């Protein structure tokens, strides 16, 4: 046999072997295994670590089993889709999805929706047009309205700068829906005596935000404040401000409510944050799955709690972290008879 033929026959032998194993390999049963699968964004951000914790804690409380898979990073759209596709083949009873973009999980969700499995969309909404054109049935959406979060941040900035001033905006990945909504909401909520002088996109990255903030401060020494689209970046901005020796003089308001940000508000490095509760969003997602698996009809969309944390209530917020420090409405508790 020539070397070429030998190689080809080796490849064919491998293929035959795999096919044989596949033939007597596992068959996916028609009845589900009663477990829940959750796919969330990258764990490189503590926001999603809290979300994962919320999902897992609630799953234990409800005596269900959950598998949580996360994307490799906040930009890993195809990787997240690949992971969901792998999970779709494993026949879970319910799927909790937090997509990186409005469309990247639409294609892997098609077979899940066709099999009639409940799909709980949390935090980042799936694009309604894409869902409609692919024929997806989303059972419910649980999240916070990022536009109103931005407006709440603007109201807080107005309180911090009663005599007006100039602010710079630091967004996440350019064009990201969440980032866009927060920035838009902030600008809508600003009083007329506060002006936005610059907007930059720092890719949700603390390091990038630090560098950008430093540059903006040097170019605009009279800057009064920053609005930052998430806490991770805000911590970078806070560092840039203290490096410039202006701690306390330049206000920083952000969104998310991660633990380090709450601590930074206590010490005065950051001024305020609009706290979303990823832990609660994740937990409510689990509750929604439990309700769906029991055959209950779910509300189309549920708003998760949002609270503003300032130096006045930072200690209280930290004490109850990762849960909200005020009461909130949870429609799922009555559905599952808690």
């Amino acid at each position, binding site marked *: 046999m020539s070397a070429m033929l030998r190689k080809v026959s080796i490849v064919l032998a491998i293929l035959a072997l795999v096919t044989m194993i596949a033939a007597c390999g596992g068959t996916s049963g028609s009845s589900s295994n009663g477990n829940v699968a959750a796919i969330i964004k990258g764990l490189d951000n503590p926001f999603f670590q809290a979300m994962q914790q919320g999902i897992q804690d609630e799953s234990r409380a409800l005596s269900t089993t959950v598998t949580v898979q996360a994307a490799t990073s906040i930009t890993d759209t195809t990787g997240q889709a690949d992971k969901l*596709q792998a999970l779709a083949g494993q026949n879970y009873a319910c799927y909790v999805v937090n997509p990186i973009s409005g469309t990247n999980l639409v294609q892997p969700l098609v077979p899940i929706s066709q099999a009639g499995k409940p799909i709980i969309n949390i935090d980042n909404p799936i694009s309604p047009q894409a869902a409609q054109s692919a024929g997806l049935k989303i059972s419910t959406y649980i999240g916070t309205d990022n536009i109103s979060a931005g407006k709440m941040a603007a109201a807080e900035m107005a309180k911090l700068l009663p005599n007006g001033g100039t602010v710079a905006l630091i967004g996440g990945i350019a064009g990201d829906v969440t980032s866009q909504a927060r920035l838009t909401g902030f600008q809508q909520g600003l009083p007329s005596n506060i002006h936005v002088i610059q907007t930059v996109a720092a890719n949700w990255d603390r390091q990038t935000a630090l560098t950008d903030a430093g540059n903006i401060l040097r170019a605009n020494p009279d800057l009064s404040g920053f609005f930052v689209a998430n806490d991770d970046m805000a911590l970078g901005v806070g560092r840039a401000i203290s490096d410039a020796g202006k701690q306390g003089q330049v206000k920083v308001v952000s969104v998310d409510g991660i633990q380090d940000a709450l601590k930074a508000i206590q010490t005065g490095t950051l001024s305020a944050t609009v706290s979303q509760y990823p832990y609660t969003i994740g937990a409510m997602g689990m509750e929604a799955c439990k309700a769906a698996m029991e055959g209950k009809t779910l509300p189309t969309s549920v708003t998760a709690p949002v609270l503003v944390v300032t130096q006045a209530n930072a200690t209280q917020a930290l004490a109850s972290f990762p849960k909200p420090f005020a009461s909130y409405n949870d429609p799922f508790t009555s559905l599952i008879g808690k």
Partner: protein
Amino acid sequence: MSRIATTGQTGQSQAAATLRQLREPAFWADWTAAVALIILVIVFGIGSSTFLSWGNIQAILVAAAILVMLSVGQAFVILTAGIDLSVASALTLGSVVLGQAYSHGWNMVLACVLAILAGIAVGVVNGLVIAKAKITDFIVTLGTLSAAAGVALILSNGEPVTIISSFLLRLATGSVGPIPYFVIVAAVVAIVAHIVLFHTRFGTHLLATGGDPEAARAMGINTDRVKIAAYTISGFLAGLASILLAARIGAAEPAADTTFLLNSVAAVVLGGVSLFGGRGNIIGPVVGALLLTALVNGLTLLGVSQFYQQLAIGIIVVLAAMLMRYQR
């Protein structure tokens, strides 16, 4: 691979020759990716009852399609002793061009053609600067990586564009019988690439250019044109892959993902293609791409957390690289 004289061989000594070859570490090193894939299939097959289900194998093949195409393009470049770091941005630029064209009401076919042309443009720029201006491929393609990413951001104004097209949806989810369209496209690319590389004069010139450029030039081969062609092929395949990418995630996203770039190089090297050029084939990189995709899929099915997945991938790639030390 060592060629043993085959004139007048009896069946017995042929078998002995094959066995002798199996004992040589060089044989296994050439087939690193295949060996690793088989081990992986066995381990994951035992560990998870769904890994070897037809649905999951389909999922792996579909997920691997884009990487396979990028790896084939990368293989052409690496075979000329070059490297193409710009594939990630060419991929992004192609999908952005597609998204912009389609969202401005242009025909989907035209938008796809433009995406491919965008990829070719990046490849031609790479090829011309590397071959004619004689600048190192590493630096040039690093530069085009950044430049193409910038063009993509400018064209899209930094915003992702949702692409809702029944054609792309069918491309992403449809199949001919049990074989998804994605897999067919990737398979056709691999087969055509193999034929070009081993059954055309251009392929021979390509291998010669990478193996020994001086000798190739002495034989009358225009190594400059061969190199330009190699980078153009890589760009073309990135443009073609961008159509599949847009179909898969339903949008044109301006943020380039360097995972594809690193994986394309890893797939090619694990597939037995020498970074020094002139030595290798197409099936190796294809198996390498399948290996990397199956690895993530299997670890996900086994419920391995994200952090351990990255550790596992790193260890396996290094182990495979150690095996490749035995390559001649």
